[in-house]
């Protein structure tokens, strides 16, 4: 009856564990989980019968063995884990091409106002856009590193004044703000349309991909 009750693969008795097999097991365990594994967790693999010192030594050997590959064994705060090296990342990114992400119209318009009218307060932006500007819009642009508060306007409430950053210029491949499309050009576009009732712009929604 014992034949059936034993799982197909029984772990070896400890004494039959060669150093190679110990290393193989550690390596496999670390490769199967994205969570870092602390030494104490790794000791469970061997029913706590191997010392932390021995495991550390083997882990160092594994780290050394992987040195030339695209993946490395590292220690982070909560333990050991395998992770990709920076040099591999650009290739892996090709496997998960981001759908062309787009900022919402609210974000783009807010950014444009800040870029052309800086420094401006949230109130200024709302006045120009004619609608309120949500905090998340400003947060998104701040987090992206494209705008920053450069001071406060001395009016009740002391609203922050926003301006674009040099990161914004870098990300748009500009050297200076002067390289932004000039307002003149756009104004003429708008003014020329004054002659017609019809504006030469498609409905914002439609062109707002």
């Amino acid at each position, binding site marked *: 009856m014992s034949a059936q009750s034993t799982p*197909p693969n029984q772990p070896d008795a400890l004494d039959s564990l060669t150093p190679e097999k110990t290393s193989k097991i550690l390596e496999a365990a670390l490769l199967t989980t994205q969570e870092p594994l602390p030494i104490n967790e790794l000791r469970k693999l061997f029913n706590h019968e191997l010392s932390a010192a021995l495991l550390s030594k083997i882990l160092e050997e594994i780290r050394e063995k992987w040195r030339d590959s695209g993946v490395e064994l590292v220690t982070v705060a909560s333990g050991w*884990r395998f992770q990709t090296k920076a040099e591999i990342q650009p290739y892996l990114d090709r496997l998960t091409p981001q759908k062309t992400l787009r900022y919402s119209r609210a974000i783009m318009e807010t950014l*444009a106002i800040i870029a052309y009218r800086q420094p401006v307060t949230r109130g200024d932006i709302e006045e120009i*856009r004619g609608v309120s500007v949500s905090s998340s819009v400003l947060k998104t642009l701040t987090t992206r590193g494209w705008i920053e508060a450069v*001071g406060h306007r001395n009016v009740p409430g002391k609203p922050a004044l926003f301006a674009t950053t040099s990161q914004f210029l870098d990300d748009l491949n500009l050297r200076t703000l002067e390289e932004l499309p*000039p307002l003149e050009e756009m104004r003429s576009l708008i003014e020329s349309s004054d002659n017609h009732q019809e504006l030469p712009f498609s409905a914002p929604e439609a062109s707002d991909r």
Partner: protein
Amino acid sequence: MQPQPNTLYSAVNSVSDSVDVSPIAKICGEPLLEIPQDLYIPPDALEVFLDTFQGPLDLLLYLIRKHNLNILDIPMAELTLQYMTYVDMMRVDQLELAAEYLLMTALLIEIKSRMLLPTPKTEMEEEHDPRAELVRRLLEYEQMKKAASRLNELPQAERDFTVIQVWIEQNVAEQLPNINLDDLRHAWTTILTRAKVNRHHQVKREMLSVRAYMSQVLRDLRGQEQVEFYDLFSPTATAAEVVVTFLAILELAKELLLEISQSQDFGIIYVRSIDAAESA
């Protein structure tokens, strides 16, 4: 004829052969090693019995294969009586299963009765053997049961092996939308268009560079009590830049964003952000 426990196991639990199998069960402290040899199940073993067999087909198959039970020679009268007894008991919480066993019994009785009836020779050729359908079903079930067993022996993800998954160290910032100048231009023209349409807003001629330098001056003042006027001008600035910076300072003063002070004639001119002055 008493089958060996081992053959019993492999017969009953063929699917579980490669899996963990505990003894069938213990009934009143006695391990149950025997599977009933006819269709009568002792009441106290009923629950175990229900767990052991997948259903009437499974039980019938077992009886035929392991006990060479001839489906024609099942003692129907006695069997029916026995079945009715435990169907009564099963009715409490296993009504559906009771029905399935009952149906099987009825089917067996029907087969038997039809086999007993004399059939005229001529009809014999056309009429199907009454056992045909049952035998077909038993064989098909047995085949699937066997297939399930083989399937269970295949290596199975998570049970027999684990898929490798290494952490991807995201050294590149989270993917964010990219914009280009056309996007920005588009956003701006949309605003202007709307402003024009809605409010006949006058678009002022705007010196962009002054705006840019206004931001820069505020940046320079940020976190400082005050800055000397001359320090706001970069030593390497071109003449145009100096002019624009000066215009920016004036514009900021006009917008009450900074304060320019001079304690005495020809003394040092200080520039301080009003923001800083207020909060200091």
